[in-house]
């Protein structure tokens, strides 16, 4: 009978607190991850939205090509008009 009581005391005083302590720590860490994941999701969504303007790069590329072609034509004219240095 004494051993029963000793076992009961161990369960109540040692095992139960240890189990509660460990499970509480796991729950706290899991709950701590939730806000971080939400922030990551919000940042990724914002980044995706920022890239909505990426197709405008096609227009930029076309404009750059046209500008460079114009500069090339102008440079060719300058090459004809202006004397060389030597």
């Amino acid at each position, binding site marked *: *009978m004494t051993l*029963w*009581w000793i*076992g*009961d005391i161990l*369960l*109540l005083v040692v*095992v*139960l607190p240890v*189990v*509660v302590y460990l*499970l*509480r720590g*796991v*729950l706290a860490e*899991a*709950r701590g*991850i*939730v806000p971080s*994941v*939400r922030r*990551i*999701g919000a940042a*990724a*969504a914002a*980044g*995706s939205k920022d*890239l*909505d303007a*990426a197709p405008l*790069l*096609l227009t*930029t*590329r076309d404009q*750059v*090509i046209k*500008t*460079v072609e114009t*500069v*090339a034509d102008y*440079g060719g004219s*300058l*090459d004809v008009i*202006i*004397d*060389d*240095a*030597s």
Partner: protein
Amino acid sequence: MPAAGVVLIVAVVLIVAALVYYLVSTIFALRQIAAGLDEAIASVGEIVEKSAPVNGIVTTINEHLDAAVSALEGLLVKKAGMQDAVGLVDGLYPGAAAEGFRDFPESATVKPPRIAEVYTRGTLTLARLGREAPIAAASPSGGPVLRNVTGGSLAARALYPEVRQTRPTALERSPIIGTDSPVQYEPSEEPGVRRRMKAKEEA
């Protein structure tokens, strides 16, 4: 049942209850994490999809800009000469001469003339590119001046009245004033009012 057995059952029930509570709470937290990660992964997928063509487009833009830079550098060096080209660029962008031109590695060793300290950028550009400005006579490059520097200022003659265009030997002199002047101008009757001419008065 002995009291010790009852206490044992109560202890086991408490432990199981604690397990159930904390594990279920942990499961809910993990579900929230999984949902958040799903959203993040979807957004990351969009980012990957949207940014896929960026590399190729930017590479194309850089290739065209590189070609333009090479052409302009070559034109500048060809027309102004290496030393003046370096001086011109360094005058417009102080410190740029240290890097030199991209397609002319030897330009980094050229000591740039201190062009910008003497002339303004506009004059500098005219002097270097066209050599049509009078200041081109002082160009360190020593290239031929396309404009007659000495006679160029005579073009201002066209701004004067027509009589000066005939280059007369002597123009009519300015009237002599004073008590000994051949023509005496009578003082006006009132300040600011000119006396009427005699001819008009007689008429």
